[in-house]
């Protein structure tokens, strides 16, 4: 599969605080990559480097010629005084014709709510609208920042199914930052476990049994407790390869 985006030895700092260190990443056409990691692990920063919104302090970002990206932000910074309908949201950043608006709305099931104000939508509807906006012009890669935040479990599962379907329909790559470890994993081709650097990566079953992943998230319902333990126990001074990164 052709490579769409390559990050080489990317380092990001906010002031003196390192957020990402030495990250190498390749995203190929058509694959679903999920980035997981605890709060403050640099997930959103990594996604912003991938979109090109954030320039790394060190390292480089290469992308395929003419690469089209669709980005679903974690949250909108809309003031309540800003009026915008669902249909108008699809016109950001540029006006699109009605045929294209109808196409992306059909794919995401938002055709019925074109005239609704964005501020009045439920969390699930808003995410589908932002997803519809992102797939305008058939992007080569979709980037989503915690797209299921605030959704209940059935809502999140439905949203992941929608993304998997879209990938099949449009043959685009999907890069997703997520909290919902167990739901995400089954839909992903590759999981990247991040904590300032890439701790481990691989197919979902490989990653979920990796000691680094277990150290970060534990297993099953003990996840929250394990996450807490991680803050004190998990050491990051190692830099070894477990042979499952591919």
């Amino acid at each position, binding site marked *: 599969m052709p490579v769409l985006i390559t990050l080489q030895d990317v380092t990001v700092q906010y002031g003196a605080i390192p957020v990402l260190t030495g990250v190498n990443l390749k995203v190929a056409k058509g694959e679903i990559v999920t980035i997981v990691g605890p709060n403050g692990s640099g997930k959103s920063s990594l996604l912003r480097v991938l979109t090109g*919104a954030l320039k790394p302090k060190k390292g480089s970002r290469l992308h395929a010629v003419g690469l089209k990206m669709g980005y679903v932000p974690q949250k909108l910074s809309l003031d309540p005084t800003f009026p915008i309908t669902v249909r108008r949201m699809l016109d950001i950043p540029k006006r699109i014709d009605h045929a294209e608006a109808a196409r992306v709305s059909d794919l995401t099931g938002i055709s019925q709510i074109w005239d609704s104000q964005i501020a009045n939508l439920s969390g699930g509807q808003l995410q589908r609208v932002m997803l519809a906006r992102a797939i305008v012009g058939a992007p080569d890669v979709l980037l989503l920042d915690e797209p299921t935040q605030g959704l209940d479990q059935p809502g999140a599962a439905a949203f992941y199914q929608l993304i998997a379907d879209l990938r099949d329909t449009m043959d685009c790559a999907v890069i997703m930052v997520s909290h919902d470890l167990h739901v995400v994993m089954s839909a992903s081709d590759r999981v990247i476990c991040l904590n300032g650097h890439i701790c481990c990566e691989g197919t979902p079953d490989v990653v979920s049994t990796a000691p680094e992943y277990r150290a970060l998230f534990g297993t099953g319902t003990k996840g929250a407790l394990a996450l807490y333990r991680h803050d004190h126990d998990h050491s990051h001074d190692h830099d070894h390869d477990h042979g499952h990164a591919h």
Partner: protein
Amino acid sequence: MVSEFILRAALAGIGVALVTGVLGCFIIWRRMVYFGDALSHASILGVAVSTAFGVSIYLGVAGVAGVIALPLFALTTRWQSMDTILGVIAHSFLAIGLIAASVWGTGLTLEGILFGDVLAVTWTDVVVVWAAALGVLGFVAVRWNNLIAATVCDDLAASVGVRTKVEQLLLSLCLAVVVGVALKTVGALLITAFLIIPAAAARSFAQTPERMAVIASFVGIIGAIGGLAASYYLDWPAGPAMIAVSAGLFLVSRLGTVRI
């Protein structure tokens, strides 16, 4: 036949309202109300400086406002409006400007600086106001898609190559120009009102940002004409009367839930 000074006042008021309506929408969408306040207060120093050095009041005010907009811009990160520091700056410049006006500005009246004198505008003033208004509106229209994208979400705008900091800076400089030309007409204290009230009134009637901008300009224009009428027939001070009419329209907008 309407007196010529009323015609000039109406044209100047309409020109100001046209551009403040649109810019005012961005002011409230992007929570820059205090920013506009600080800028208009600082412009008083511009009046004093132009009088002292004998330069055009428009250039003096827009120049000072532009120079001040840069550090203000640096201090104001989005969604964190730095209310305290902006409040300190706004009122400090108000004081310094009034001192400078008293020392340098022979012939300047406090009321004229604070509230403007729309009834005393000349044909030259009308031309300057309209040139600036149309220039700024044209500029905003060209950058409209970028400005709206940056207003909806910084990260989203950045992901499609919009430089959000640059857009915000250009918006601030447009504001400086408008404050510069509007000062003589509506005065330093009323400029913020001209920016905020029509935009706030337009919110209830608008479904999209474009409609809100158009309705805001329309509300401002009704305010300008209505205020002048009140000034002519009831002998109210013209600048405050314009704001009072806009404020009345804002109240009406909140009473109904009419959607256009």
